[in-house]
């Protein structure tokens, strides 16, 4: 019996082996191709700048900046102050306080001399009612604060859309800071292609650095190890998948921390979905669907040089909360838009972008856990070839680290940041740890995201905030 069982297990593991080899080949090839394409694209864009293939004069597309906020009293004033230093002439700032329990509204009223006003709001997209609207005069641009009943981030963003007076809007987080030229850079694709309905910016962790008048004063990798590893992770993610998907109009995600949208198209598509945690991704996928189905010529771009500096969690607990929320949001979005599996209608958007997110993002935690389980099984039934496994994991770790470092250096080189030698060393030492340890921890976390899913469906998620170093 035992021999029979061993034989059966052996046969199963053979097929499992084949599955994982194919899985890893496809994934590694995808990563490799996307990082190479990403690097080449970045270098090409640098060359474009070098040869003056940019809009040299300042053209201003009118933009409403929407900042949804929930319990952001620590950072929101600095965020709004940083928005007032942008070198851009035609924009407005709208902060939506989504029923904060702290003093978010109070600190804004004090800092910017906002006065309560009876402003009628046209509900073009659904959102909870406002409780109070405040406006200010005397600042560089108009600042509007809307205090409303709590309804979640998507609801707050919809309120912002309803209040916005300009044809384009930017959504950004209340703990983020834009560079002096971020608006100019993110609006540039709109001027070069009239079919652009959305543009994603590049979000970079700002932990441990300082910004002076919208310019990076001192750049260094965060002291906090967790934040440091997230820098590598963000660089890899932005360089790899985002740029590749951008090349065939297949971007399914624009970070909620910084994205530009054409207001009329978003309204026509129904605005943000208030029933999901991943409202940023859901909106982009919805825009794709809406434009494809209605045969509207469109394009969704990625502006690699439009930078938004955002805080990343420095505590493991906060990071886990964040990643669970992202994973649930991903599930909700892919589930809601499973029509994209109709490859005939959606083309590469379906069979590349959607399938990538389905297989290598949504299902991957379970796939990797299954892989771990089969390793344990192999040990129990004495099938495991240890030297081979060690070699395999070593190469896997080296490959992952090299991809991360490529992304890190490509970003550093192409946006002309001066990085200290100690930071380079830190990046090299941490990249392997990030690939082997942090990645697996987060896969466990993501796999556990569905536990207690229904209870915490729409919560913002509490994360510790630190004051941003703005001079």
């Amino acid at each position, binding site marked *: 019996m035992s021999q029979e069982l061993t034989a059966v297990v052996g046969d199963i593991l053979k097929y499992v082996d084949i599955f994982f080899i194919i899985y890893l080949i496809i994934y590694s090839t995808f990563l490799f191709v996307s*990082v190479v394409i990403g*690097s080449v694209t970045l270098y090409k864009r640098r*060359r474009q700048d070098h*040869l003056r293939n940019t809009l040299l004069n300042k053209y201003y597309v009118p933009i409403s900046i929407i900042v949804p906020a929930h319990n952001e009293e620590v950072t929101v004033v600095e965020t709004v102050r940083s928005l007032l230093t942008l070198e851009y002439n035609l924009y407005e700032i709208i902060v939506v306080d989504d029923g904060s329990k702290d003093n978010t509204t109070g600190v804004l009223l004090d800092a910017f001399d906002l006065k309560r006003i*009876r402003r009628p709001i046209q509900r073009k997209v659904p959102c909870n009612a406002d409780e109070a609207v405040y406006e200010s005069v005397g600042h560089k641009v108009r600042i509007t604060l809307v205090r409303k009943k709590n309804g979640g981030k998507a609801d707050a963003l919809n309120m912002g859309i309803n209040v916005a007076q300009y044809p384009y809007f930017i959504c950004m987080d209340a703990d983020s800071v834009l560079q002096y030229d971020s608006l100019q850079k993110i609006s540039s694709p709109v001027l070069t292609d009239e079919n652009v309905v959305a543009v994603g910016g590049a979000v970079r962790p700002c932990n441990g650095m300082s910004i002076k008048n919208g310019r990076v004063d001192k750049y260094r990798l965060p002291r906090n190890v967790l934040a440091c590893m997230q820098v590598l992770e963000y660089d890899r993610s932005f360089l790899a998948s985002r740029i590749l998907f951008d090349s065939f109009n297949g971007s399914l995600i624009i970070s909620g921390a910084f994205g530009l949208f054409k207001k009329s198209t978003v309204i026509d598509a129904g605005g943000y979905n208030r029933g999901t945690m991943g409202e940023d991704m859901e909106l982009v996928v919805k825009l794709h669907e809406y434009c494809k189905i209605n045969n509207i010529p469109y394009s969704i771009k990625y502006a690699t040089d439009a930078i938004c500096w955002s805080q990343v969690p420095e505590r493991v607990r906060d990071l886990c909360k964040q990643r669970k929320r992202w994973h649930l949001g991903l599930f909700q979005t892919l589930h809601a838009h499973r029509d994209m599996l109709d490859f005939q209608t959606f083309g590469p958007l379906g069979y590349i972008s959607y399938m990538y997110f389905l297989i290598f993002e949504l299902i991957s935690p379970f796939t990797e856990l299954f892989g771990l389980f089969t390793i344990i099984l192999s040990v129990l039934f004495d099938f495991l070839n240890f030297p081979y496994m060690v070699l*395999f994991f070593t190469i896997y770790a080296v490959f992952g680290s090299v991809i991360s470092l*490529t992304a890190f250096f*490509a970003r550093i*080189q192409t946006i002309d940041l001066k990085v200290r030698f100690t930071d380079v060393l830190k990046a090299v030492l941490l990249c392997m740890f990030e690939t082997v340890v942090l990645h697996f921890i987060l896969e466990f976390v993501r796999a556990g995201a569905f536990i207690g899913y229904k209870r915490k469906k729409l919560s913002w998620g509490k994360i510790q905030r630190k004051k941003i170093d703005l001079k």
Partner: protein
Amino acid sequence: MNALTIIYVYLAISGSIIIFNIAYAISYKVMQKRTASMSNRLMHEIVRCTQDPDNEKLIKKHCGMLRRRLKNSENLIAYDMALERLDDTDSAVKEKYIDNTYGVMIYLCIKYMHSDPLKAAFFPYFVKKYGLVKGKGNGAIIEMLIQMVSSDSIFSRENALEAIYSTGDSMKVIEAMRMINSNPVMHNEKLITDGLFQFTGDFSELEALIWIHLDEFKEQLQVALLNFMRFRSGGNCDKMYGILEDENRSDELRFAAIRYFGKYKDERAYPFLIRFADDIKNVKWQYAAISATALAAYPGKDTETVLKKCLTSRDWYVRFNASESLSRLGYEYEDLYDVQEGKDRFAKEMMQYRFDQEKIRNGGEPV
């Protein structure tokens, strides 16, 4: 192929990526140093020429060297860096140098026009920066720049347009607009409207020529040009009125004309604005909404009557714009008592908002 082979393949790929990174970093540094060194050499040559500008033999040799070197875009960038340093030189000396090397620029223009779009876009930028075509009339470079305006690359088009604007020649701008018009890919309206402000010649002459040739252009380009004139000056009322009253003109053109008369008051336009704002049921909402804004320039009883009616429109933008116009015209609560005490909640809310805004502007607390 066994799994071990695959592993070694990925090890090799990892190694290649590392080599790629190192090679790029090194090549970029080398390229920067080479460009800086070339810039220094070119600077040295330029200074020699500016010190002896009438030495034909020297100039000829210099031009020959430029023809050979500057076909390479990196060297052209180095030349740009060198010329930037000439900024401190006497402007007459600099102009003489540029005149002496004009033939080289014609040669380079031909070369770059037929090169890849990335490099081609740099040359017009260079032309504009050093005023190579300023006052040059029918020069060869200008003609080539006009051809470049039909490029598929938006940056080539935009840089070429900016260079053409710098000629100060209105007719050349019109020729450029014709090129844009014939291109299936339309240049962004905003880039055209705002870009025209870089024109260095006589704006009145340019506007006159635009009117003569307006009907040759597609609607989108016409709108961009009309918007330019709106931002530019109030000297086009006659022609704009012709568009406003002509019902055969497209809606977009008539909207542009309405906006024009919102900025520059002309009594001839007034009856149209009143009609558009008043006849909400029979005209497109955009006519009513844009006219409601324009009426802020026409104070009077009829305006007041129509704007009050617009406050009760079913269209949000009509109400919004009408309330803004009433506020700009200085109407206060007492003047609009009938609205504020009336039955239309939306009208009341809209005007209340404007009164609150006025209070804030005057330092008060509305609520």
